[in-house]
């Protein structure tokens, strides 16, 4: 029983990381209408930046995280500007291929700069684990921080969308980019802002992910990135609470699958979830139906 709860908590922790990444995915997908494949690799870059800042430069942890966030924000906006903006009116296929190209570019750039060796990432959380039920159940401090961070981020984002002018602009662009433009909303700036927020979140997710799973390679971001997209689809793409619920559920499914079914098949189980969701309810848990107009 205790081990089940412990797995469950691990799942919620991993799920929170997925949720933070999925928030970035879901915002970009909702507003720019594109699947930003490079999102997962922005996570990886963010982790490397934090790694270098902490380990090589010996900077304090909060400052390192800030630097990582700044670099990722800049990176996200730059990718959008160079690779995606020229393709705003291109076919979906073209945008998708470009995004894959961007993802590949970041991975291989990191491979050239940092090498293929696994770096052991230092945890950014320096607290004692929480012991419950007479020490039978240990909750790691990373888990606590990750879950709290995830909830705070989600609430902030929802407030941002609801109350700020930029948030309203985002909603308008996601409904109808053309109409938003005619209403005087700067669509390009709104999309750039979306990428900036998504990428900043990716940096935070990267640091949290690597604190919990401390091995860092150029491919670290790819799988969590794809799984976070699965989470975003699961929860209903474009929906912020959906990304949160999807992320948590997916993390729990993955960890429980790993523990009780097969560790080698954990990824396969996650992907099977995606396929089942898309086949049964393509709009996800909280998504809305969009029909093509004839």
């Amino acid at each position: 029983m205790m081990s089940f709860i412990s797995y469950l908590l691990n799942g919620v922790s991993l799920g929170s990381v997925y949720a933070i990444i999925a928030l970035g995915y879901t915002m970009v997908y909702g507003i720019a209408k594109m699947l930003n494949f490079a999102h997962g690799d922005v996570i990886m870059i963010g982790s490397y930046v934090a790694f270098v800042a902490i380990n090589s430069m010996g900077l304090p942890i909060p400052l390192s995280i800030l630097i990582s966030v700044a670099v990722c924000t800049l990176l996200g906006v730059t990718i959008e500007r160079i690779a995606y903006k020229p393709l705003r009116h291109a076919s979906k296929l073209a945008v998708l291929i470009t995004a894959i190209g961007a993802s590949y570019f970041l991975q291989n750039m990191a491979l050239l700069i940092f090498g293929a060796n696994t770096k052991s990432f230092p945890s950014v959380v320096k607290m004692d684990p929480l012991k419950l039920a007479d020490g039978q159940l240990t909750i790691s401090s990373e888990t606590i921080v990750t879950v709290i961070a995830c909830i705070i981020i989600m609430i902030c984002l929802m407030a941002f969308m609801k109350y700020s002018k930029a948030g309203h602009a985002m909603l308008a662009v996601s409904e109808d980019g053309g109409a938003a433009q005619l209403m005087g909303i700067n669509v390009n700036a709104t999309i750039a802002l979306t990428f900036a927020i998504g990428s900043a979140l990716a940096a935070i997710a990267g640091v949290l992910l690597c604190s919990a799973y401390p091995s860092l390679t150029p491919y670290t971001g790819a799988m969590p990135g794809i799984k976070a997209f699965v989470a975003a689809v699961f929860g209903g793409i474009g929906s912020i609470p959906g990304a949160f619920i999807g992320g948590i559920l997916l993390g729990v499914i993955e960890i429980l699958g790993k523990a009780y079914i097969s560790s080698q098949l954990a990824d396969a189980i996650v992907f099977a979830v995606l396929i089942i969701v898309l086949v049964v309810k393509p709009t996800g848990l909280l998504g809305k139906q969009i029909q093509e107009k004839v």
Partner: protein
Amino acid sequence: MKKMSKITKNNLITYAIVVFAYAVCEILMRAGQMSSLMKGLLVPLCVYVILAVSLNLTVGILGELSLGHAGFMCVGAFTSAVFSKCMASVITVPTLRFFLAVLIGVVCAGVCGILIGIPVLRLRGDYLAIVTLAFGEIIKNVVNVIYLGKDSNGFHFSMKDSMSLGMEPDGMIIIKGAQGITGTPTDSNFTLGAVLVLLTLIVVLNLVHSRTGRAIMAIRDNRIAAESIGIDITKYKIMAFSISAALAGAAGVLYAHNLSTLTALPKNFGYNMSITILVFVVLGGIGSIRGSMIAAVVLTLLPELLRALNEYRMLIYAVVLIVTMIFTWSPKAIELRERYSPEKLFRKKEKEVQ
């Protein structure tokens, strides 16, 4: 009609290129002018060409992005390797065994294509891409945990380890989980590879220029209009997708029978492989079958010949993807192209004459 002969002529040129390239390689080999590095590359080249051409059927002709193409290759490779390993002592003519293996691999990959296509092809665009990716990864993961053995009692199957197969001592383990299949007869060679390339090209080109191909491209260009003229969307999508999968299976068979040890790694059957194939298709020109073929050859040979490039290969692939797309689609690039394209300048003159 003039147009018909143009298509036929174009196809014949494509076939001629293959025959010519094959002849040149054979002559070089016979004359002892080919390095062992090149010799080792010949069969993989055929594998890549088949993969690129078959993926172009999905991406270029059907217009859907599949990121799980390597998964179908994996199915073809493993099913055919199991067949050949079991039949190694029964069928002793390697070429016959190989063609039967191709048949098995093609059918299994094609059936997989149909099974996966039915749920997947109802989705569109990004969702379809991510689901094909998911299927590719699932196939790879599942293959890695399969244990298959054969003894006097028949086949034994397990997904845990080789001990749980419960085999008689005389038994032979065929698939050993992550260690894959060892001792597949290396039945393939360059000639068989070239034959498979030709067959693939014939299947794809003939399919594209037929009633079926027209229906598939009509769906690609405008699904709603295709429906309005009575074209069965699901049927033709699944047909294109599964033929593409079946041909990837053929590539897998060729791949498996070129190695004595077959394992499912991210490198050969994972997402990375699918992307590499996609790069061939994109650089060769989406929808251009001959382009895919040439791009597959050039992009495989270049990094091998220029060793210094090899380190940067993946990075270059990434740049190729982005630049090709921007060059094809960005409004600025289109404007530039229109202004300086010789064809357009020529056409303008023609109009003025009229």
